[in-house]
């Protein structure tokens, strides 16, 4: 596959991510912040997001499996996750976090567990998508091309 094909593929793929609501404007902003002085900005931020989210999801699972659930702690974790996901533009993760917080307020363990499942699902989806995206970018760079900016 030549570079222009790969570039087109990247553009289509990115557009589809936006269309399907996996990513929103914020991700575009992140991409705009990437420049010569900060070439790996997006990847760094996204990697940090992955680390953070995995940790948070594990913590949430542990907290919700306690006999007496500390909803304040759970809410704090979800808030963190919401903040992180909205900072990088992971829209669906953010939305499921919003629903999660409501169940936390009601202290509904069942609902929270369901939401956690949802959050996990969305997170893994977006992780896969972003990893595919980065793989494509690496391939382009390796082939000597440059990353086209999606407007």
């Amino acid at each position, binding site marked *: 596959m030549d570079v222009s094909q790969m570039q087109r593929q990247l553009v289509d793929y990115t557009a589809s991510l936006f269309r399907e609501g996996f990513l929103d404007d914020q991700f575009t902003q992140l991409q705009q912040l990437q420049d010569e002085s900060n070439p790996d900005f997006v990847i*760094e931020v996204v990697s940090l997001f992955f680390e953070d989210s995995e940790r948070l999801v594990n913590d949430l699972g542990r907290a919700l499996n306690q006999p007496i659930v500390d909803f304040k702690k759970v809410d*704090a974790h979800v808030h963190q996750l919401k903040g992180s996901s909205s900072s990088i533009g992971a829209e669906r993760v953010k939305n499921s976090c919003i629903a999660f917080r409501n169940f936390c307020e009601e202290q509904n363990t069942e609902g929270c567990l369901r939401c956690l499942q949802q959050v996990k699902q969305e997170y893994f989806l977006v992780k896969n998508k972003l990893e595919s995206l980065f793989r494509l970018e690496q391939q382009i760079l390796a082939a000597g091309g440059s990353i086209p900016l999606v407007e």
Partner: protein
Amino acid sequence: MDYCNCIEPQWPADELLMKFQFISDFFIALAYFSIPLELIYFVKKSALFPYRWVLVQFGAFIVLCGATHLINLWTFSTHSRTVEVVITTAKVLTAAVSCATALMLVHIIPDLLSVKTRELFLKNKAAQLDHEMGLIRTQEETGRHVRMLTHEIRSTLDRHTILKTTLIELGRTLALEECALWMPTRTGLELQLSYTLHHQNPVGFTVPIHLPVINQVFSSDRAVKISPNSPVAKLRPTGGKYIPGEVVAVRVPLLHLSNFQIYDWPEHSTKCYALMILMLPSDSARHWHVHELELVQVVADQVAVALSHAAILEESMKAREMLMEQNVALDLARREAETAIRARNDFLAVMNHEMRNPMHAIIALSSLLQETELTPEQRLMVETVLKSSNLLATLINDVLDLSRLEDGSLELDLVTFNLHAVFKEVVQLIKPIASVKKLLVTLTLASDLPEHAIGDEKRLMQTILSIVGNAVKFSKEGSISIAACIAKSEPLQDAQAPYFFPVPSDTHFYLRVQVKDSGLGLNPQDIPKLFNKFVQNQSVENRNCGGTGLGLAICKRFVNLMEGQIWIESEGLGKGCTASFVVKLGIAGHSNEPDLCVEPLNRVQTNFPGLKVLLMDDNGVSRMVTKGLLMHLGCDVTVTSSTDECFQVVSPEYKVVFIEIGTSGTGVYEVARAIREKIPTRHWRPLIVALTGNINRATKDNCFRVGMKGVLLKPISLGKMRSVLSELLERGTLHES
């Protein structure tokens, strides 16, 4: 022997007789002499003897008698003349004294006798007093028993305990054989044996209430003696040998709450009594004393009071339980309502997002499609699609807006805007439709209407557009006139708000808008319902018009939010109608906020080389993103991840501090205050700006109160951050955004 003068005995002296006489005389003399000695001895012994000199007299009399008899002893033999003389003197003296004594005794003996009578009288009196004392003591004891009984009765609020205690204590105090209480049954026609002291009869025994003996007892407020053979008193097994003891019956009024009136004591107006029967032991020959009857009456009254207290307590406990149940039910209902509201809010939040996305996709793509090459039929189809989707989008927006309005969660966006321009734009928008319908639209703006004002431009326009749109929709011909002016400080003619006085002030004025049309008009009866949700004027011509009926409801809510009033007048069907509203707007140029929209920033810096910025954010990812953003703009960013760290690091070399509010709660406000204290000089203090994912009035107020210069809503775009930093550096504060 010579002739002697002695008296010669008549007969010759007998030796024996002479001897006897001699001895007797001797003993008489002895006795006579010992009596005074005894008297003196005993009188000396006694403390009280009033007749001392009588004693002396009597003593003298006795002594002389004794002396006479003594001297007689010498006369039995021959004796001399001296003896004769002595004996004569003695006899004479004795005679004198004894006569005196006899006379004295006449006086004295009655006195002595009366002493005796007095003594007897006093003894009788003492006996009587003793008797009375005995009576009083008994009475006092029974009084004590009553008090104790009353105390016992009143110390408990349990009905059964009260009655049982009464019977037991009465039985004990009065030493009764049997004591029983008959209570009226529910029907009120019978008395049922409820409590007895010794359980000799099965409880549950009933007696009809209208027996003469019972009536007799119930009609008197005293204890009444009744016959032991009456049916209420037949509480013992009738054995032949027993002479039954006396029986007393007393009524116990059963008082209800309603019997206690404020100004009277409870008169026995109540018809409900219980009967207390008291029986003395048989074969005891005891009788009912008056004080015992009184005791029984007093006790009966006390029992009545105690029972009424118990009844009141029972009622109040029941009422309390009912209230608690109601409370629980209400709480449950409230929680359910809250859950429902939350569910609805969630639904709305999701719908907001979910519905708008596809809508925008449809509208955007349809409009794009319109721009391409299409055949006329295709164009028509696309236009229809566009129109329908616009309608749908409006509908969604309306419903969502209304829900938010009802929640009270809608807040006005106050901006400075051009008031005249708003009206002109509305006219522009409505012109096409109006010209198609051949309606004349005129706009009159008062000369004193300010050009600029502060308010929610978008919603004001929406309101005016809604009303004017309605006017156009419901008019087939004629003209529409829109008039805007400043409301005068006079009551409005709206019947629903007769007390609304639009009072202008230094910072606010009231805008009054009137839209008159010559259309279909309205039935005056329908006017109040117009502003209700989903209500449309149901005349035949209107069925063709679309719309949800929400327009006016939303307008009313917007107007209310702007602290105004809206009303519609019509003289009747076919006579057109006039819609008017008054809203409060801020006077531009007088308020504290600089009117930024009029003077845009002179220059927006694209880069801020070397600007030292301090960032505080406890979320790693978010922190990194904001840092990247600031670094892209050329800032020299220092990151901290806690309020403590931020406070320690902050110093005058930083120009701007960004603090993420998040869930840190009040900690961030504290650190803002602390920074103000740490660097008191305003000139050197960095500008503090808050970052948050959720902006509301309360947060904004809190931030500004602690001296922050602005509040930013995340996520922030590059352009936004650029303008924020420019503004901060140029003005030192951010306009409310």
